[in-house]
């Protein structure tokens, strides 16, 4: 049952990311459902599940993107690995733990820009117009999810 739920959630996150990214696009910033999904799976469920799903979603993800094969599996599994390392050093049920999500989204966004943009010089330009607002937007979504997780936990 757990595996089934995990696969279902992974596919949902993947489809959201692929299909609805344009729908949630505000200017140049967008939601990153995959990162939010991996963040919550790793921190609040099972890090190993996060690692496996991160790898496979990464592989599926780059089928649609013109990048070198292996980039996203490496990126996503490394993100999960990093999150797992930090997990024990933070109070994950406090709202300020969402700073970790902020930095994760920021980091992934930065890597994506480096991978997908030809000119590295343009990275500095989108620092304040894309990466930080995008991280804030994803943190807001994370805040809502964390609120529900906390409620369920109290019940």
């Amino acid at each position: 049952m757990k595996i089934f739920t995990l696969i279902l959630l992974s596919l949902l996150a993947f489809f959201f990311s692929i299909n609805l990214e344009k729908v949630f696009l505000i200017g140049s910033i967008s939601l990153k459902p995959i990162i939010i999904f991996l963040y919550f799976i790793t921190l609040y469920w099972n890090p190993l599940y996060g690692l496996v799903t991160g790898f496979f979603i990464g592989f599926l993800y780059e089928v649609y993107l013109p990048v070198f094969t292996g980039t996203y599996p490496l990126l996503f599994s490394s993100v999960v690995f990093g999150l797992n390392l930090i997990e024990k050093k933070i109070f994950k049920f406090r709202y300020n733990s969402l700073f970790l999500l902020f930095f994760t989204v920021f980091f992934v966004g930065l890597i994506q820009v480096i991978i997908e943009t030809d000119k590295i010089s343009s990275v500095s330009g989108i620092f304040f117009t894309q990466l930080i607002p995008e991280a804030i937007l994803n943190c807001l979504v994370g805040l809502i999810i964390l609120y529900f997780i906390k409620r369920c936990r109290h019940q």
Partner: protein
Amino acid sequence: MEKKFLRVYLLFVCVSLSLLVLDGLSDMKLGSKFYNFLSPNFQSFFSRFLKINDLKEENKRLLEKIATLTYEKQMYNELKKENQELKKIIEFRFNYPKGIIPAEIERRTPEEINLSFQIGKGSADGVEKNAAVISFKGVVGKVLKLGNNTSVVQTLKNYNSAISVRDTRSEREGILKWNKKFFVEGIPQYADLKEGDTLVTSGKGSVFPKGLPVGTVTYVGKKPNYYSLEIDVETFEDLNKVNVVFVIKK
């Protein structure tokens, strides 16, 4: 658990790096190869989702186009109708050498009892008081009140209305009146009047010229000890539906 996690992570890193190296060596992206390996149906299934935004845009554009075309069609129909009416007016004017003034009905009283119209032509257009008002089909009424640019027409559907009419077949004359229905007074019981006879204006009085069509006889009856026949009439023009009228110049 930690060791297992680390081992799995290292395995994934190795696989990813191998894929990256292989991708660098091969001419075609491995991802593309994998994508091409998928069945066409599978691809179209995904592309359907990928194109959802384009379809939404197209749908929006088409809806706007439909709305514009519907509006244009309505406009076209209205113009066609107007054109036909104008044609009829031009043809109709040739029948009246003295001249007629076409006018649109701007307002009409809601009650049927004493129906009157306000038309958009007045003394400035050559309309005179008590001038006869007709439609394409027949007599409508007369000008009761005259303004500079508008006039009030008292229709036949009025208790005060009384016009002299003549039966075209028997040549008998009577007075057409209205009391919730049209009826004719003053034709003796021995007169040869039949249902379906046509009534026209007789030309008596100073308002209506001779020979304007009025209506048809729908009922002829005799009441004992009465001088006149009981005659019901239906006017040619439905006065509740008429939109364009003509004022006959005196």
